[in-house]
């Protein structure tokens, strides 16, 4: 398998918190969502696998280049960093610089000769270029940070809660951008606190709890689009269902329509709604 990122048995202890036995990989052109409750370790996981903080042990490979194998391999890490884009949570730009100056300054970190390419294809920022970052809305600032993380054409991008503060228009633009980059072969690891439209294009979802990977849902797409795996218990208590194939696949209601979006509500009753992030926490993990 052609992997953009491969993480094996990674451990990291930060104060009282420990990331333990982290094993996963991200394929090329794949969008992996990272879900988990607050404080479950999503940000720490991103910082550790990007080697902002050094893991305690394990192995991390980017595109077949080992960047950590008991110790940081500086040359390989530098090479990997060139291909990595990252949007950190709580990142704050300098308020006194204009948007254009911000791109001019931060684009040099990746040796980009043409900072215009960071923003030229984004119509939402076109009128803001000469404004100071400090006067922009939080949503616009988040958009700038997103553009900064993708501007150098990275092959793998980590986005830590990118939808914060975004209105529908900006969120939709970012979603389309991710979609285009994905189809061009860029991989994504996107941490989320709420399941927003990015679910439409996600391939897999990783659930983290107390610093450990609880589950990786390989058929996330099916779940998200209504083909929810249904337990026998649910089926027995759902008289309105006309036909169901136990174990997986589509549930067809009496009126003959596929239920496009489903979730499991209280008392195991089916609810017609798009699944929320919390629904995925209840998906039973499989032995990996």
């Amino acid at each position, binding site marked *: 398998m052609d992997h953009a990122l491969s993480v094996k048995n990674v451990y990291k202890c*930060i104060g009282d918190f420990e990331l333990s036995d982290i094993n996963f990989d991200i394929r090329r052109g794949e969008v992996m969502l990272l879900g988990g409750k607050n404080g479950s370790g999503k940000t720490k996981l991103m*910082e550790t696998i*990007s*080697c*902002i*903080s*050094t893991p305690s042990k394990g192995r991390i490979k980017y595109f077949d280049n080992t960047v950590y194998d008991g110790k*940081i391999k500086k040359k390989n890490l*530098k*090479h990997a*960093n*060139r291909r*990595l884009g*990252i949007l*950190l*949570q*709580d*990142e*704050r*730009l*300098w308020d*006194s*610089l204009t948007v254009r*100056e911000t791109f*001019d*300054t*931060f*684009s*040099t*970190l*990746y*040796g980009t*000769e043409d900072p215009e390419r960071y923003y030229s294809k984004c119509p939402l920022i076109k009128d803001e270029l000469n404004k100071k970052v400090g006067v922009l809305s939080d949503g616009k600032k988040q958009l700038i940070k997103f553009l900064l993380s993708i501007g150098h054409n990275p092959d793998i991008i980590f986005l830590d809660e990118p939808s914060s503060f975004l209105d529908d228009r900006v969120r939709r633009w970012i979603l389309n951008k991710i979609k285009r980059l994905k189809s061009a072969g860029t991989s994504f690891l996107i941490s989320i606190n709420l399941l927003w439209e990015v679910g439409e294009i996600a391939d897999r979802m990783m659930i983290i709890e107390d610093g450990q990977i609880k589950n990786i849902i390989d058929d996330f797409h099916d779940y998200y689009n209504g083909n929810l795996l249904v337990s026998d218990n649910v089926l027995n208590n759902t008289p309105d269902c006309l036909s169901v194939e136990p174990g997986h696949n589509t549930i067809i209601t009496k009126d003959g329509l596929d239920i496009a979006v489903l979730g499991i509500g209280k008392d195991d009753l089916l609810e017609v709604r798009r699944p929320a992030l919390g629904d995925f926490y209840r998906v039973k993990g499989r032995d990996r």
Partner: protein
Amino acid sequence: MKRTPFNAFMKAQVKRRIRNKRFLVWVVIMPIILMGSLHLIWEGQGVQPHIVVFNQDDSNMSVVALGILKSQEDLEVHEVFSLETGIDELRKGDAEAFVVIPRDFGAKWDQIGEDDFESIVFDVYYTAGEQEEKLINLILKGVVEDINRFVEGDKQRPVEINSRRLSLNGGATSDMLLPAGIIIINVHIGVYASSTDISRVKEHNLCKKIKVGPKDPIHPLMGMIIIDSVFTTVASMIALISGMVLFDLSISYIALLGSILLFFLSSILFSMIGHVIGKHSDAQTSAQSIASMVIFPLIFFSQAFLFSSIFPRYVSNIATYLPTYPLTEGMRQLYFYQISILGFMSLLFICALWLLLFFLISYHLENKRR
């Protein structure tokens, strides 16, 4: 200009600093205010010390001594009529010294013979330090010499005096105050501005952003440090020029050029120290407190305010090895004493060594991963 992280962050830092009005006021106004305040101390030194005198003796000679004491140009003498009143004035800070003309002053004078004489003893009470004591003793010796001039023949008492009158408004004070003012500015702006800025960058996760890029993180941060050092140098130059005007001091062009070099090197050094503090702090507020804790001893032991002789020997030895030493000593040598090229170069060399040390620490911290 080539687009490198160093150049880009340098450019960004100039814009950030220029657009920050509070910082500009700090850089431009603070040196002027500080030098103005220090000038007040300097002017205050010209005011006559206030001395109270209690004459316990009723002899003619004591009256003469009192008269001569009162006629001293450098002193403002005020007579009191009890020991308690004098001590009370001293305690309240109304007088710098309290002199008691002893009861047997006239009698002792009369007893002085050619071969055998007894010393005249003034009781002097003072609250200030060693220098005040020396000053008062010197003036009293001058008074005794004046009395000798007044009396005739074998009643003259031989008095050995090194210098009869002490010029209180001389160069010795500006020698101390001017470098002191500049060092406050240089250390304060250098350490404080850099530490708060770096801690803010860290707090805003920009350090991580810089670190995760393929370029060495020290480059953009050095760009920021260099610009902060330029602003610190400008502030130090404003302090120097204000000082030259206020203290009526003229220095040569060579000394001025030497100052710019010295200020710039020291500014980078103190900004580096600030960088180390900023990197170690979790938040801006903790960076500010650590910076204050570092700035105080650096300035206090820099020998800028107090000469090393006032400290115990081991403390003054330590002071010589502080990062502030080349700056203090360099300024004294450049403005007040003769300095050789070799001497100046050796001070710059010490500064460069400190700089190298802190650069290595900064480099290590920037590349260190938690």
